């Protein structure tokens, strides 16, 4: 009985400790950054004067970057997962691919940055542009989307596929009518994980060449861009104290964006689950 209690307490501590530390950190940030948080902070461009600086180009840049890379990574990732789970015969080769995809999800993001720099910036000559950044981010998201979607497809019981086949459906119809709708909540969860990971990434964007100072908002695929983590990093590295407050406020904006994205995902998932 005593052991039971000790174990229970240990498990409880395992939740409270990390969560508490995280909340403490967030609380401190909010406390610091709150004074700078205003509408003008969201709509102003960066400035040499800390109290006038805003996060507008970084926020717009991040949203554009995420939308583009999501639009690229999610359809491709789902299609790849469909191929691996529904079409590919289980051979040595397909196992090798699966293993590699799973490993790719764990590759440090800076490596993707280097890959993006070499392929998109230099070989394809896109330059240090929004599209280079988005393509690099899409690469980073792909393994996560593929792995999560595959897991989601695996949870669809075989007998539903059989029932669909037995009604005289083709494989495409079975995938479209049964497998994808039933796996959708899982796919959405995985996709949002990938998006959350991508929105906070800094290293690959630094390598691909995101701008640290932007006096305009990106207006084309090949225009320069910056993103929230880059702007925050830039502010943190300034000596003046005022910029630290800007950085704290920037972090609040970043976390807030993430929070909204997650809410949307949870909302979507619940909708599809309750259908």
């Amino acid at each position, binding site marked *: 009985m005593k052991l039971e209690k000790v174990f229970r307490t240990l498990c409880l501590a395992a939740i409270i400790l990390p969560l508490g530390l995280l909340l403490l950190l967030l609380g401190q940030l909010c406390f610091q950054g709150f004074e700078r948080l205003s509408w003008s902070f969201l709509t102003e461009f960066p400035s040499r004067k800390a109290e006038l600086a805003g996060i507008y180009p970084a926020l717009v840049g991040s949203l554009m970057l995420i939308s583009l890379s999501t639009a690229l990574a999610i359809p491709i990732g789902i299609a790849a997962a469909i191929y691996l789970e529904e079409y590919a015969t289980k051979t040595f080769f397909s196992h090798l691919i699966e293993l590699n995809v799973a490993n790719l999800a764990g590759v440090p993001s800076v490596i993707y940055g280097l890959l993006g720099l070499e392929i998109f910036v230099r070989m394809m000559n896109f330059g240090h542009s929004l599209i280079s950044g988005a393509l690099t981010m899409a690469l980073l998201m792909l393994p996560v989307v593929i792995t999560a979607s595959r897991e989601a497809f695996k949870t669809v019981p075989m*007998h539903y596929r059989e029932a669909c*086949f*037995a009604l005289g*459906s083709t494989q495409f119809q079975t995938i479209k009518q049964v497998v994808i709708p039933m796996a959708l909540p899982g796919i959405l969860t995985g996709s949002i994980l990938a998006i959350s990971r991508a929105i906070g990434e800094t290293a690959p964007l630094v390598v691909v060449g995101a701008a640290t100072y932007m006096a305009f908002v990106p207006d084309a695929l090949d225009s320069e861009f910056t993103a929230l983590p880059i702007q925050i990093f830039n502010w943190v590295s300034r000596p003046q104290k005022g910029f630290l407050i800007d950085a704290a406020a920037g972090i609040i904006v970043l976390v807030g964006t993430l929070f909204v994205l997650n809410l949307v995902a949870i909302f979507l998932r619940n909708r599809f689950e309750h259908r």
Partner: protein
Amino acid sequence: MNKFEVKQLSAWYRDIQVLQSISMPILEQQVTAIIGPSGCGKSTFIRCLNRMHELSEGARLEGHVYLENQNIYAPKVDPVLLRRRVGMVFQKPNPFPHLSILDNVLSGLRLTQRPRNLEIAESALRKAALWEEVKDRLEKPGISLSGGQQQRLCIARTLAVDPEVILMDEPCSALDPIATARVEDLIHELRKNYTIVIVTHSMQQAARVSNKTAFFLSGILVEFSDTSQLFTSPTHPRTEDYITGKFG
């Protein structure tokens, strides 16, 4: 008249042979029951009749199955079209959980994108003796029904595609006695218009619903004859041992 003519059918899962040179006819507009102990190959047998067997990993097959004198394993036969002629009802009721009752009935017709054909849905549900119970809640999820209703929904879903043959793989093994009786009544009704092959664990059920019975043992067809004859005067000693409960 023979609907199916099965000739020297053997089937494997990887290295394990589950059917050994089965030859038997299946008569049109009759109910044929397949009985035998677990693992005797009876489910595999009916899965060979609508080419579901080949969907399993490592599945292989030899021999011929003729549906109205057409070999269904001929290269030019499209298994998708064949399965519309030869429908199947499974052991566990499995309406699609993301679809309503109505969409479940019509799922084989792929009409969900276009205006849904309510006439077909109603007629299929009536044939499956489910219409009166669900007509007021067609938009409710298929899985909101009871187990027995779900199984009749699955039968309705199969009927909506307008097949000629219905294969049933132990359709009542997950149902209570009352739901079982309803499905059996339904089988009596359906055999006027369809050819039915039913795999069953229950010898009483085979005796109640079928005209012909085949007894399978370890992948071998031991005996095939009129149901009344098989249960009253089996010719093979193994059949007698099984139906009198000495094993199985």
